Structures are given as C-alpha cells and as structure tokens.
C-alpha cells in the first residue's frame, strides 16, 4: 500500500532521497505501523515527539497501530512556537 511520509524540522534529514517539500510517498507492506516506518528510516526514537496520522495525534502507545492505504504520517521533534 502507499502512504505519505513527512518529516519536519531537524528530522527532515532522515527522509530518503527523492523527498520534496519534506515528504515522500512510500510503498509499505499492509499492516505497517508508524513505529516501523520510523525505525526503517533510522529516525532516533528519542527525537520523535509529535506524531500525526492524517493530522490526528497519536500517543506513544498508539504508534504501533497499522496504517491504512493513503494515510499521511507526519512527525516532528519537540517543538513549540507562538
């Protein structure tokens, strides 16, 4: 299945070649989870703070939930603004 993977701020460097505007479309196996995708791209776990799927926040315990085709996974380190 295809999903969109987005990494922002300092995590952007972990996106694979071919990514544009901080995102890339990925072909992933059925049942693939956010945690698995982050591990596959060697994103340091300690830097993963804000995880959104289709804009909705996933608590750490929910990040092993399988993604659905067409999902958009977006991840940030600890950030804030105002």
């Amino acid at each position, binding site marked *: 299945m295809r999903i969109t993977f987005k990494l922002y701020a300092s995590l952007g460097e972990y996106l694979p070649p071919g990514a544009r505007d901080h995102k890339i479309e990925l072909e992933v196996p059925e049942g693939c989870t956010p945690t698995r995708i982050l591990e596959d791209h060697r994103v340091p776990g300690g830097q993963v703070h804000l995880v959104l799927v289709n804009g909705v926040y996933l608590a750490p315990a929910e990040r092993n939930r399988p993604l659905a085709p067409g999902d958009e996974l977006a991840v940030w380190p600890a950030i804030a603004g*105002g």
Partner: protein
Amino acid sequence: MGWHNKVLRVNLTAGTCTPEPLNAEWAQQYLGQRGLATKYLVEEVDPKVDPLAPENKIIFATGPLTGTAASTGGRYSVITKGALTGAIACSNSGGYFGAELKMAGWDMIICEGRAAKPVYLFIEDGRAELLPADGLWGKSVWEVDEIIHRTHQDPLIRISAIGRAGEEGVMYAGVVNDLHRAAGRSGVGTVMGSKNLKAIAVRGTAGVRVKDPARFMQAAAAAKEVLAGNAVTGQGLPKYGTQVLMNVINEVGALPTRNHRDVQFEGAGHISGEAMHEPRPSDGKPNLVTNQACFGCTIACGRISRIDQKHYTVVNRPEYWSASGGLEYEAAWALGAATGVDDLEALTYANFLCNEQGFDPISFGATVGAAMELYDMGVITDAETGGLRLVFGSAEVLTTLAELTGRGEGFGREIGLGSKRLCEKYGHPELSMSVNGQEFPAYDSRGIQGMGLTYATSNRGACHLRSYTVSSEILGIPEKTDPLASEGKAGLVKAFQDATAAVDSSGLCLFTTFAWTLGDIAPQLDAACEGEWSVDRLLETGERIWNMERQFNLAAGFTAKDDTLPKRLLTEPAKTGPAKGKVNELPKMLPEYYQLRGWDAEGVPTGETLSRLGL
C-alpha cells in the same frame, strides 16, 4: 528590591518629567509590568475615555526581573486603553529597551496628556527631558533610531518609537524598539502617536539590585539549566523559531486561510520555518541569516532574515538588502495564509515594512484577507482600491498595501482601519475575523477548540498570548489534550490565563514556559524582590490581574455579549482536515468558564470573587 522604587511621570501637556515613588503596596498585589501598570491605569483613567483623547494614558512598564540576570529578563510592556479595541491593552516586547530603562533607574514611565508639538523623551540615568521631535516626525522607526543615535552620539542608547503608521492613525500601530522588536498589538502605537510622542530614548548605567544576590544567582542558574536541557527551548526554538509551527498547524487543520474560509493552506510549506532554512534557487542563500536573542535570553528564538536582492520588492532598493527582523509564525501566517500568498520573500518584505513603519502584521494581514474576501464578493471594487485588484494570493497586492498602509496613503488608509471598521464600513461586519475589534492570530478555533474560548474571553481582544492552549492541545505541553474536544477546556483556559498574567508581570518571556513551570519562576522572583513569592501566590496574583482587567472592560462598556466569536466560526464547519465538519463549541464552554471564574451568568465577577482577590 528588583525595583528602584521610582516611577517617571511625564506630563506631555505641561512638558514636565517628574519622579515619584513606586507604589510598593500595589507591587505586592500585582507584581509588576502588566499587573502593576494596569493597576495604575485603572486607578487613573476613566474606562470610558476615548483611547485617542489626552485623558488616556500610556505606560511603559518593566517587571521585577527586567534587567536582571534571569534568562529572558529583558521584557517590558506598554499598557493603555487600546485604540483598536477600546479595551484594556497590554503589549509585551523583548529586545533591549526594557532592560535599559531599568538600568537607568526607572521601573515605569507613565505618559499623560498630549504634547502641543511632536516630542521625544530622552532619559539618561536619573535625568529625563522632553525634546522637540520636529526632525523625527514623518520618519520611520528605523530613521528615528539612526537620527537619535547620531544626535546624542551614543550607540548604546536604546529606542522605542512609533513609525509613520502611529502618526497616521493606523488603528493597529505598534511601538517598535531596537528596530524590530515590537509591542505590536491593540493599537498601543496609535495611542502614542495621538499624544505626539514619537519616541523614548534611554541610556542607563545604574544597574539593578536584587534582594538576595547569592540565592538569586543560584535560582537563575538552575532555571537556565532547565531551558538548556529542554528540547524545545534548548534546540527547537533557537533553530526554527516560532515558524516551525506553520506545517504543524496546517497539518492539524487549524491554519486559518483566506480570511478563515479554509483551515488548511496549500502554500504553507513554502512560507514555513523549514523553508526559511532552504537555499533559494535565485541566489543559493537561505532567507534566514541567523537567530537572535533579546536581553539576557538563553533561548534565542528571534529570526534575522535577508531578502533576495533580485526579488521584485527590493530590486534597486539597497535600503532593504540588509539583514533585519525576519518572519515569526504569527506574521508569516497573517501576511501569508490569511491572504493566500505563498511568496516567502514578499512576506519578509511586508514584515520589514511592519517593523519599519510600526504596525502589527497580524492585524494588517488579517485585514488584507478580509478586504480580499470583500473584493472577491464584489463589495469592494477597483473604484475604491484605486485599481488594485485585491485577489487572494497576490503578493504584489500584499506588498503594495503594506507600503500604502505604513504611509497612510490610498487604499492603505482603509486597511489601516482594521478589519472590524473596514467590514462594518462595507456592510459586512460578520466578515471581520476578530473579537472586540482585534484580529485573530494564527489558530482556527474550529480545529483547536480551547482557542475559541481563549479568544472570546481575552481581555485585550482576540489574542493567543493570553492563554496559549495550543501548547497543550497540539504540542502536549505540559500535557496533551484533544484539540477537537471542548470538554475540560474551560479549566484549561482559566489556568493558562492566570499563569500567563503572572509571567507577563515578572519581566520574563512567556516562551520560557515551554520548559519552565511557575515552580521555576517563583524562586527567582522570591530571591529578587520583597514578598514571599510562591507558585500559589503567583497564581492568585494572575487571577487578581485577570479580574482587574475584566472589571476595566466591563466599566468601559463591554458585556457578556462581547464574549463571542464571528458567526463563521460558530456556524460554518471546517471544510478539510481533522476538524472537517466541526464548528467552535463556544456555547458549551463559556458557562463553565464563568462558573470557574466566579462570575455570574452575565460574566460579571461576583462580590465574593472580588472580595477573595482583594479587588
């Protein structure tokens, strides 16, 4: 201590500068800066006064930690009855001016009356005098800064000034210090301009004393370690600034776009914090030059940018080629998403103009967005705009309007009215995305429910800096709550409002609270100044300040009917994103909020509440 116990009273009508003792009893009840200066204002100014009448006053106030070694201890606030809103106004700024004022031996300046001719206030330690500003009137903030430094031959003078916007009656003119730090909101610069006060220039060498220096330095050092060790204040904010939020808020579907018609902006990525770091195709250089810290700050979130010299806005205009104050998130949103413009260089140029001529980019951008919607509807036509085609997404229109508004010319005079007056004038008051006349900042309350209550109850009109529940609802600081739920938000908003009022009264920056709790702030205050400053006392002080501000607004004529949001946010569901189909659920939150506040059903503090708070 923390205080000099000295207030400068400037009577602009009489042309006098008179020192007087700080009211130490009030400092115990209202702490400083926002709280203490508001106490002076409510005691001295009729709440029903015309904000632009000589009877209104404008106060420049430091906090007890301003000018000390506490991290971010350089803040000051400008307090008055706001020109844009007619409500209590308190705009907070960083930079170096506030600390310099304190170093000069003054805790606060109260300006009253109106000068017969333009003047500026010059302070050199204990000496203060009003000087003619004939050569400054009509000049920009940047020109004023240069002329005053040249006139007094002292590069260390710090200057807070209005630009042409404040002279021309732009209703959201701000006060700009150190070239690009601003007390930006609510029209405090408009009030300053109405008094013919062009600038305050200050040089201070007196220093600041604290009550228990050893304990204070220990507390300040411990608190700095917390900031350095926190991923947000130690890494995220210095590198990306507030602008890192652009993609976040777009992703969660709460980025108000094209006057809140939409909640997601297709061009968000192009105007984001990440985009500011990327090399431009034209010259290979990024928009962002460096980050910058205000006085004493160990976070350093400020943005310093340089516009592409080949960009249409600055071609053959080298005066705009230098690095200067870059885009913060709120400005980038208002100049960009609110107008549908995704040209980062154009936004940076418009932001430079806001600093140069002293006007609030949030209210300006949001008002342009409202005008664009009216143009789209055919209500505003080329006949009114002088031929400018106000189409959403036009960078040229945005930058032209920034030029015109700053100078008070052409259709810029209409934009300078603010969205409330503009939309009323053209028969569509419902299209002003504002509360009590002040335009929303960069969060759509259909996608972040708590912000709807925040805006509706903010004492200075729509504002994110009175209760930043985004911190909890989106960023998970101090703990994550669901942005789409209205349950529990009344308590969250009250807690944020009270804590923020205390921080705003201390001399510290609100951004410390991404890492600090009041438990980190209280020991610094307690070591610096008289009084047993504990977390509980700070919260009670914050609540007292909030209720005092509310009382002023009620006396000014505001009622519970003003605690509301534009119809669009209450009846037109978000079209996309996680909040698709949702409106803001203010009616569910407001009654509980009144109850938690100890106010009656009409939003009036009960006698018991006032008595409990000593009001």
